[in-house]
Every structure is written in structure tokens, then in C-alpha cells.
């Protein structure tokens, strides 16, 4: 089969339309008003990705008494001293500007206090009530407003365009463009650009239970690795303790039941309907995400499970009426799945939520490959080993905007587009069309297999044996995938082909996660090694750096640079209280 891509040119190309992608488009257009800006995205503009799914809210140090320093310290301590401090600092500092931009220029509604000021609440792991929000649907508000702004501007839209390969210039010195599949027609399209932002949003969807949207399959990270870029912190997969468990046959399984349920006093109970959290931690149900996730996992491993193999969350003791009022959206969502959250028991399970790891970037979102910029969940560094609730969307909007500014400026300095390396182009097309040469097979079953492997061997709790076994099984799945085909008779909007491609990226990135997890022989934040439960000395903190492609992955360690504050020190004054949570109430 012979494929040749349609060719298309632009100045600034943005992959993804989450918080990072949309912000980048707006900023790029402002920074370079005459440049052509193009957004290419796997779904519809603003309607895919995870930013839309943000519930809790947006961390920003705004209120009197709070400070960028305090936000920064929470971020660094929450990340167990692994964050890149310059990135974390810029995140906390710029979030203040960004929230004003969201409110004043983009038109977002954020909830107010009776006196008219912004209402902020506390997410776990914070020392201040810092999370701005719009009810418990903050992401819908942020993305809908950004989407309107983008749609009303002359930004070129390539919707349902899946990026499949980054194509370097002929001399290899820079990025020339990106190869896409126009999903609606099934044809290839090569888009050349002076600058490209990758904002495809990571997303650990290779776990049996996961929260991110169905369009996310770590394509971006897989593409970046194939161009030789290093990924850091890839072992750091955050699990949310309470994903809905509604059985294997429904896509609703894995979706988040919000943190606030536990915060409000919800009980977790095992299959015997006994509370168990206090057996693990003095904080009980209110302990941090990682601790609760591990406790639930342990109960499950001991076989004390609910019918679908998880545990229960129970809210009824708080008064069904009150629960129905306070958590209206969650109650309705559970009801749609046949559960009564207000008065009954709902089955839950830890669910893979966020990938802290990602491409190594500088604080201007530049990467080692000139012309390629990375922002949002695709970029590693800002969160270290653990992301605080509320720092995810702050990160994607802050750095998306930064990327737009920087790309706009850089693009003004560049004269011509690069000619693509046709060999790489052909390779990438061959890679994407590989399944057409094989006999059609059951991609879904194979995907389920990978999801089980990752959950069992590279999941909430890890050890060397399990990780080795996991790697071995991943290789098997890899081989099986290579011999599993997709019928090529009708490629227009062919989801089965895209399922195959999704699984390709997920297999590649699963290996990187497992290898990185094997390499880190201590336990920090989201990464827990049963054979190395200690955290290691903070001042000797290192992060993992994975490079290579396909089956040849190597993981190195690099020391964390404490550029702003060293372990044991703080930016807060000696007279400042350790925590001010709830002080305002």
C-alpha cells in the first residue's frame, strides 16, 4: 500500500486543545499577530482532553495571608523535593496572573464569597485554602470560555487530526513539522510549521482503572521519544483513590468520584462493610491520595472486596438529604450508573489519574529539539513525584500561555519553513500503517491485557519482581500487537485503526513507566516500592531520565538541583504558621 501525505503549511502549530493548547493559541496570536496559528487536535476543539474534566479547581495564591512562597513550598514538599524548582516557582508565580486573565479577559466565572472576593478552598496537601473553583465543574467553565475565545478568532482548526509523528528537518537540526492522520478521511497530512507546541496531555490510560478522557493515549510522549527526547519522572503515576467501579463492561468505570466526598466525612468500607482507613493512617479517610490508594489496594489484595472487586464509599451517615444537596453532580452521576450515593453504598477503586512525568523542558517550554515546545501534562518537572490537586490545571494554563508567548516571539525570528526529512516521514507512515499488513485481530482484548498487567505489576504498589514480570509481559503484548492487524478497507473515521494506534503508544509508554519504576529504588510520592519503602535522603534526590525508543529504553538518574530552596529549609518566615487551612472560615 502506497501512502503519500497531503501537505499543508502554517507558522505556529499547536497539538491539543486542553488548557495548554488553547492558551497557547491565544497567546501566540497576540505575540505574533501576523503569524498563522493552527490547532490540530485528536477530537473536537475544546471538547476532548482532561482540562474539561477538572472538578476541584485551580491553585493560586491570591488571598491575603497566602503567598507565592507558600504555594511554592507546598508544591515542592508535596512533590517530595523532586520538582524542578524553577518550573514550580514559575508555575506558582504566573498562576496569579493567569487567574486574572481567566477571570478578566477570558470571562471565566469563579465562585465568590459573600463579600465579592474569590472563594478558595483547600485541597489535600495544602497549607492554605487556595483552590479557586466554579462549583465542582471548574474545568468545563475554563475550557468552554477558552474555546469561545479561540473559535471567535482566526485560528485555523484541524479537528479530528491525530498527530502520529514528529518530522525533523532534513539536516536533523530542527523540527520541520508534524505528520497527522485526518481521522475523518483516513488520509495522512503533513503540516509544516516554524514552531510546534506539543500539548497532548500525557494521561496514564494504560491502567485497568483510569480517569483521563478516552482520546488520551500518550501519543505525544511516544512521538517525542522517537525523536530522541528524554522523559523524566515517568514512574510517577498518580492514582486517585476513589474511581467509580461499575464493572468491566462500562466506560464509566474508573471515572473520578470527587475528593470532597472523603473530605466531607465519607467512609471507606471494605467488602465486609468494615471501615479500614484507620488501620493504615491516623488521618483515616482524609489521608492523602497516595496513602488512601495504597490502603484500598491492600484491602483488595487481601480479598476483602465488594462484588466488582473494589471497596465501598458510604455517605449515608451524613444524611442523604445533605449529601444529595452538597454533591448534586456526583449523586446524579452515580445514579446514572445505578448507584445511590446519597443513601447507599458505591463501589470504588483507585484509578490512574495523572502523569507527573513528561518531556524535559526549560521554564520557557523549550525542548532539546529546536522548534518543539512542550507544555501541560506532557511536560515533566513541575510536580516532581506528586501533583497537588489544583496544580494540574494551573500548570497547563500557565505554561500553555508561556509557550504561546515564546513561540510567537521565536517564530518572528525565523524566516523559512524547513523541508522535512522524507525518510523519517516514510518511517512514521509505515509505522502507522503497519497493522494493515497483518491479519485483523482483537485489539480490545490485547488492550485489556495491557491494562491488567499495568495494574497488577506496575501499579499502586511495586517491587522489583513484579516490575520485571511486568516488563516481560509488556514485551509479549508488544509482539502480539505487531502481529495483530486492522482491516484497511474503509479508513474513514476508523476507530479500530485508532484503537490500534492508541495501544501502540500505550505499550511503548508502559515500558518506559515500568523501566523508570524499576530504576527508582526508593519510595517517593506516587511511586511506592514495597522492596524499597524508604524515601531516600532528600538532599540526594534524583530524578529518572528515560531515553530510547521501542524496546530499547534506558533510564538514567540525574540529581535534583535545589536552585531555590534546599531540603530542610523553607521560604516562609520563621513567624509564619505551618498551616493556615481553614483559618479563613
Amino acid at each position, binding site marked *: 500500500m502506497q501512502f503519500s501525505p497531503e501537505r499543508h503549511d502554517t507558522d505556529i502549530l499547536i497539538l491539543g486543545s486542553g488548557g495548554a493548547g488553547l492558551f497557547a493559541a491565544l497567546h501566540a496570536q497576540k505575540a505574533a499577530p501576523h503569524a498563522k496559528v493552527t490547532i490540530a487536535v485528536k477530537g473536537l476543539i475544546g471538547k476532548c482532553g482532561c482540562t474539561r474534566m477538572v472538578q476541584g479547581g485551580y491553585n493560586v495564591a491570591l488571598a491575603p495571608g497566602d503567598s507565592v512562597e507558600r504555594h511554592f513550598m507546598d508544591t515542592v514538599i508535596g512533590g517530595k523535593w523532586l520538582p524542578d524548582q524553577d518550573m514550580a516557582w514559575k508555575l506558582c508565580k504566573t498562576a496569579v496572573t493567569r487567574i486574572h486573565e481567566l477571570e478578566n479577559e477570558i470571562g471565566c466565572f469563579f465562585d465568590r464569597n459573600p463579600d465579592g472576593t474569590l472563594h478558595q478552598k483547600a485541597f489535600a496537601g495544602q497549607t492554605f485554602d487556595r483552590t479557586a473553583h466554579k462549583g465542582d465543574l471548574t474545568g468545563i467553565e475554563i475550557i468552554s470560555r477558552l474555546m469561545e475565545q479561540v473559535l471567535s478568532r482566526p485560528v485555523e482548526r484541524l479537528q479530528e487530526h491525530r498527530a502520529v509523528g514528529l518530522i525533523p528537518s532534513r539536516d536533523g537540526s530542527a523540527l520541520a513539522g508534524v505528520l497527522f492522520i485526518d481521522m475523518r478521511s483516513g488520509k495522512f497530512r503533513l503540516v509544516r510549521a516554524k514552531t510546534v507546541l506539543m500539548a497532548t496531555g500525557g494521561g496514564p490510560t494504560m491502567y485497568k482503572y483510569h480517569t483521563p478522557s478516552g482520546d488520551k493515549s500518550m501519543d505525544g510522549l511516544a512521538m517525542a521519544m522517537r525523536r530522541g527526547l528524554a522523559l523524566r519522572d515517568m514512574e510517577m503515576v498518580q492514582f486517585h483513590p476513589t474511581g467509580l467501579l461499575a464493572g468491566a463492561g462500562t466506560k464509566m468505570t474508573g471515572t473520578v468520584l470527587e475528593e470532597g466526598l472523603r473530605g466531607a466525612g465519607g467512609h471507606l468500607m471494605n467488602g465486609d462493610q468494615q471501615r479500614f482507613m484507620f488501620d493504615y493512617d491516623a488521618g483515616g479517610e482524609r489521608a492523602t491520595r497516595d496513602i488512601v490508594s495504597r490502603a484500598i489496594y491492600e484491602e483488595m489484595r487481601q480479598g476483602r472486596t465488594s462484588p466488582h472487586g473494589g471497596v465501598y464509599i458510604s455517605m449515608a451517615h451524613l444524611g442523604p438529604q445533605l449529601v444529595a444537596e452538597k454533591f448534586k453532580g456526583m449523586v446524579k452521576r452515580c445514579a446514572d450508573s445505578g448507584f445511590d450515593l446519597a443513601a447507599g453504598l458505591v463501589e470504588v477503586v483507585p484509578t490512574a489519574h495523572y502523569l507527573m512525568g513528561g518531556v524535559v523542558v526549560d521554564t520557557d517550554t523549550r525542548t532539546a529539539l529546536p522548534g518543539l515546545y512542550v507544555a501541560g501534562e506532557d511536560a515533566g518537572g513541575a510536580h516532581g513525584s506528586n501533583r497537588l490537586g489544583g496544580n494540574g490545571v494551573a500548570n497547563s494554563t500557565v505554561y500553555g500561555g508561556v509557550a504561546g508567548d515564546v513561540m510567537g516571539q521565536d517564530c518572528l525570528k525565523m524566516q523559512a519553513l524547513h523541508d522535512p526529512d522524507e525518510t523519517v516521514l516514510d518511517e512514521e507512515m509505515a509505522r502507522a500503517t503497519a497493522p494493515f499488513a497483518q491479519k485483523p485481530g482483537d485489539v480490545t482484548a490485547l488492550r485489556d491485557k495491557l491494562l491488567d498487567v499495568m495494574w497488577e505489576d506496575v501499579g499502586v504498589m511495586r517491587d522489583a519482581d513484579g516490575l520485571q514480570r511486568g516488563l516481560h509481559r509488556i514485551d509479549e503484548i508488544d509482539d502480539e500487537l505487531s502481529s495483530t492487524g486492522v482491516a484497511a478497507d474503509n479508513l474513514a473515521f476508523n476507530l*479500530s485503526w485508532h484503537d490500534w494506534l492508541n495501544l501502540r503508544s500505550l505499550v511503548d509508554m508502559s515500558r518506559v513507566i515500568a523501566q523508570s519504576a524499576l530504576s527508582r529504588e526508593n519510595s517517593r510520592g506516587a511511586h511506592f516500592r514495597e522492596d524499597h519503602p524508604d524515601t531516600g535522603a532528600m538532599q540526594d534526590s534524583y530524578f529518572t531520565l528515560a531515553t530510547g525508543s521501542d524496546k530499547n529504553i534506558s533510564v538514567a538518574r540525574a540529581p535534583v538541583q535545589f536552585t531555590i530552596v534546599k531540603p530542610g529549609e523553607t521560604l516562609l518566615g520563621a513567624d509564619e504558621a505551618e498551616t493556615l487551612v481553614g483559618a479563613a472560615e
Partner: protein
Amino acid sequence: MSGSEQFLDVSIWREQDGDGHFQQFAVPRRDNQTILDVVAWVQQQRDPTLSYRFACRVGMCGSCAMMVNGAPRWTCRTHVQKVAEDNHLQIAPLRNLPVIKDLAVDMDPFFDKWVAADAVFEPSQTRHDPMAPIDPQDPMRVAASEAIECINCAVCYAACDVVAANPDYLGPAALNRSWSLLNDSRDAGQAERLKAVSGEGGCHNCHAQQSCARYCPNELNPTVSISGLKRATAKSVFSWGK
């Protein structure tokens, strides 16, 4: 799994390049099964070429709406149990939008109208200004808030017969958003907005059929919003002369 060999009798609209027909499938019935799960099962187990769209799978992105037994629904949050009639399901692409293939429609017209209704915030301040203090109980804020939680799923757009009959009609969702903005004290573009919703396809074409409100999965009421626009524009008739 309830029952051993229980099957749903599902007919799914297949369309490519303008040719369309319904195709029958027997889909095993499961507990906690949504319409989206049924569609995905068919694509994964029976016909790999079946096209449809979803993203969030929890009612937040508004990508997955389809006509289910003749009514528009968000399929990821619609339980089979709730809508199946005698074990039968008829699943078709969302009404009033052009079909790309099978169950996937082109949503561009819907969003073009969103912009045409001037349903886009027009800032009066910049990021360097302080945030406006806003009383959450202020009647305007309350009105704006009541209309705001729209996921642009186009369910209302599919439910409305005026949209079907009048290609210019901006539709319930866009007008609903315009109304929300009209109550946004921070917005600087109200005069243009009133003009935008008063043209050939404007709010005055709504006959209060209220199918929009009936089917909106988020329990929004575009009829109320559109009535608000009608009032506001009618009022402006008496003040435009000034």
C-alpha cells in the same frame, strides 16, 4: 451480569458519503451498561468500521450525543435500562447536524452559530486589573449562573424543530450562552450582542417548544434564557432611538 443469554436488539444508523440505512446488531446485555458502551461494543466486537465520537465518558465534554429511540441523549450517561423499549434500541446520529460518518456528526455549524450569537465574552478589564468584586446573590449573577453550566453537547439543538426548519436559527445553546453573558456585569459588548441575537436567525424565532429544556442533560432551561433575550431586545427597541 444479569441473566445468562440476554441480548439487546440494536439498530444503528450507518452512513457514508450521504448513503444511509439502519443495521441490526444483537448486543449482550450487561448491568450498568450505557448507550455508549453498546455502541463501543459493536465497534469492537462486530463491525470495526462503525464510527462514533466520545471523549470524557462522564458527561462533561458533550462529544457523545446521539438520537436514542428518537430522542437526543448524551450516550455516556444514558443507562440502557432507562431508554430501552422491549429490549430494543435505535441509535442514530444527532439530528440537525450534517453526518460525517455513521453516528459522528459535524458540530461546526453548531459552534459557528455560537460565535454568530456573540456568545463570546468581551472583556472590559485586563489581567493587570484586580478582579471585580461580585456578590454571588446579585440577581444578575444568579441569572448568569443559572445558564452557565452548558457542555455544548447540542442535545438541545437536536431537539428543537425550529433549528430543523430554519437554517439560520442560532439555536437554544448559543442563545442560552448569550443570555448568560448579557447578565455578566464584566462584559463590555452588550450592544453588539443584542444586535447579534436580533437578526434573521435570532432569539425571536423561538416558539417556546421547550424540547431544549426537556432534553438538556444538565437541566438547563434555554427557553428561560431565550425569553430573557426577547425581553432585553424588546426593551432596547424603546431605547435605541436615544
